[in-house]
């Protein structure tokens, strides 16, 4: 069974027992994330919407690749792989002029 490492961003560590990374079993990204929220149920509402979809501002990378451009949650993972959860960072000073 593969054991990828999931990197937890600082705003979510209060829900992962303060751990900055968690090793979870899983053959795919979806399996690994499911394992993560199984171990740490409080993370679920911060990662997923009520209908079970990953929140739009939550980016998930497998090593250096955005899973959206791979096979999404069906992306396979191997031992030694790192899954990074990265909430988006954006903003701007004022409304766009239309």
């Amino acid at each position: 069974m593969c054991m990828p490492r999931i990197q937890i961003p600082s705003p979510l560590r209060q829900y992962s027992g303060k751990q900055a990374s968690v090793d979870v079993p899983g053959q795919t990204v979806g399996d690994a994330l499911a394992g993560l929220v199984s171990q740490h149920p409080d993370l679920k509402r911060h990662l997923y919407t009520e209908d079970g979809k990953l929140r739009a501002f939550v980016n998930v990378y497998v090593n250096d690749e955005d899973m959206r451009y791979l096979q999404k949650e069906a992306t396979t993972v191997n031992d030694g792989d790192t899954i990074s959860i990265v909430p988006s960072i954006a903003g701007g000073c004022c409304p766009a002029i239309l």
Partner: protein
Amino acid sequence: MLRLSASVYLSLREHGEEIYPHECCGVLLGLFGDDGVKTVSRIARCGNTRADSPHNRYHIDPKELIRIQREGRERGEDIVGFYHSHPDHPARWSPTDLAEAHWFGCSYVITSVEKGKAVLTHSFELVGGDEPDKRFEDEKIERF
């Protein structure tokens, strides 16, 4: 409170001046103290992917953030916040800044850059339990 050295403070303001009239952006790296004080040891400049509207929008590529985070881990540092500039606009968070903020507990530092010169630099901490109740609170900057 956000603690940062004079050189870090100067660096993030200079970045805003260099990128004017566009918005600059970057990452604050350092440590979270047990007392709630964040101490910044260095900044990491980032590219602004909003080439369509760089004068009033910024976005950091998550891939760049992952690299910065990995390098920070190797140095024993954490991401404690982000900074960006407001060209010819106040150093206060905007509705867009709040809508796009998701790093709870982190600092969002904003510098107003007027006619190419950095004026005010303010910090705001993103607080709240979840998206519906998130808000920015004014945060004191202590320079050392």
